[in-house]
């Protein structure tokens, strides 16, 4: 590929992502009353989760070796990952499924845009992230701020944790996206996508150290549900210090990105469009 072609391809992709994000923002602002509802919903969720943690820690001192402050931090990373998954992956896979089911995808396949990129980032609901998710996390941050000193966070652990979140999100996106593509073969992929989301958030159940060995193996290989939250927090808090794992995680990310592209091409070849 020539350098000018590469630049052009990047430009188109940037234009798609920025336009779709702006459109998503305008769309979410249209229902202002519901935005307040969403904000309230997330604040209530956060509050109820904190009550849940309080009740648990009224009975036990640690969960899988994590104290109260560490569990609060674990909750924070769960929230960050959930919002990212919700805004980037969940919305778009939901729309992809509906597009395949109704045949609307045909329209997009004939347009001169990179189709895979477009369906991956068609709707990024920035409004929900800025006006609901972020403010709802504030109570958690306030409580956590008072307990920050009890958290041990080595510098390289923080770097590794951030990388795990980013790479884990990419892997999760590819994983959920590929499961959603079953709609190409079966006509409906709603529950396949839901299952993908459930699997992806399975690593949010308990800290990394609490999982049995076989689950850690599964969660870091074929069904990568442990990277973005469980492993990331383990690195953040200095409980895992084997940074070589990051090289493996990077390789896994590249593999999943490749797999997503291959699956997309394969699925398109088997797509019985509405007009065919």
């Amino acid at each position, binding site marked *: 590929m020539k350098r000018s072609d590469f630049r052009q391809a990047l430009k188109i992709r940037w234009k798609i992502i920025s336009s779709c994000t702006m459109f998503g923002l305008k769309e979410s602002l249209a*229902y202002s*009353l*519901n*935005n*307040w*509802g*969403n*904000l*309230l*919903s*997330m604040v*209530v*969720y956060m509050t*109820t*989760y904190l*009550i*849940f943690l309080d*009740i*648990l820690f*009224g*009975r*036990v001192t640690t*969960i*899988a070796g994590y104290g109260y402050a560490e569990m609060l931090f674990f909750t924070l990373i769960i929230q960050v990952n959930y919002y990212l998954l919700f805004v980037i992956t969940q919305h778009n896979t939901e729309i992809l499924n509906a597009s395949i089911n109704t045949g609307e995808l045909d329209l997009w396949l004939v347009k001169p845009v990179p189709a895979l990129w477009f369906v991956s980032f068609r709707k990024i609901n920035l409004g929900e992230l800025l006006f*609901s998710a972020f403010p709802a996390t504030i109570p958690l941050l306030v409580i956590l701020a008072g307990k920050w000193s009890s958290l041990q966070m080595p510098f390289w652990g923080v770097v590794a944790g951030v990388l795990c979140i980013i790479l884990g999100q990419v892997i999760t996106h590819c994983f959920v996206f590929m499961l959603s593509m*079953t709609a190409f073969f*079966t*006509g*409906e*992929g*709603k*529950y*396949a996508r*839901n*299952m993908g989301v*459930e*699997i992806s958030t*399975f690593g949010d*159940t*308990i800290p990394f150290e*609490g*999982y049995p060995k076989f689950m850690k193996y599964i969660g870091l290989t074929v069904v990568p549900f442990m990277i973005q939250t469980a492993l990331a927090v383990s690195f953040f808090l200095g409980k895992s210090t084997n940074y070589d794992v990051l090289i493996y995680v990077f390789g896994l990310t590249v593999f999943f990105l490749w797999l997503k592209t291959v699956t997309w091409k394969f699925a398109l070849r088997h797509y019985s469009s509405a007009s065919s």
Partner: protein
Amino acid sequence: MRFATYTKTAALGFLQVANYRTEVWFQVFSKLLVFSGIILLWSVIGTGNSGQTYSQLIAYFLVANGVREFVDALYGKFGSVMIDDIKGGKISAYLLQPTHTVIFMYFKYLGTRGVAMFFAVLYIIMGIILAPPTTILAGFLFLLIVGSGSVICFAQSTMVGSCAFWMTEAKGIKNVVNHVSKVFSGALIPLTFFPIAYQTPAMFSPFASYAYLPATLLQTKTIDTFLLLQVGASVGWALMLLYISRLIWRKGVRQYEAIGL
């Protein structure tokens, strides 16, 4: 209007979902995954402080989550369906039909829940096998509570769904109710784990009928006055919320403006 209309609508809804067989399996696997998450969490927390054995705790969660799924309190999706139908204008067609609109919508939705309900019953049966009820009265009261829980959830979803008449998009409100219900139903954590000050209000809240109360009824050794009071409160909540939901729905319909009407 003959009742058969509603049952046929439910059957049609079930067929729509059952047509996609792979989807049914994905749904089944998702449900197993969610439940295994709860078991995993409790296997790490341990049962040392709960006064229950591990099998009793699993039986509790099987019944609690089974009932919660059975009465549709897990996600309260009927509320979402109602919101979408109002937002998308589909409701105009339903209003013109010679049926009771809310009941028609409910049965239409109920059919699509066939697989989930089947799985919920399996959960409950497994829970009963692990910790069978000690008296016939407990079994009878359990069925009564499942009934009142269904009515409460139906009323809750109708009220939440009716918000769409005023707000157009009301899923945020639906989620608020769901989050509160998740913790205060006792599906995530038994209400007996709560601090004493919050235990009694939580036990007498309508949400307790979704999980805690039915699971407790099956596990209790004696039916005391306190438990009977909770059952009475649940039935009371069911009747009251059903009446309120009807009022809200009627008010919403009166101010609904449909295109072409």
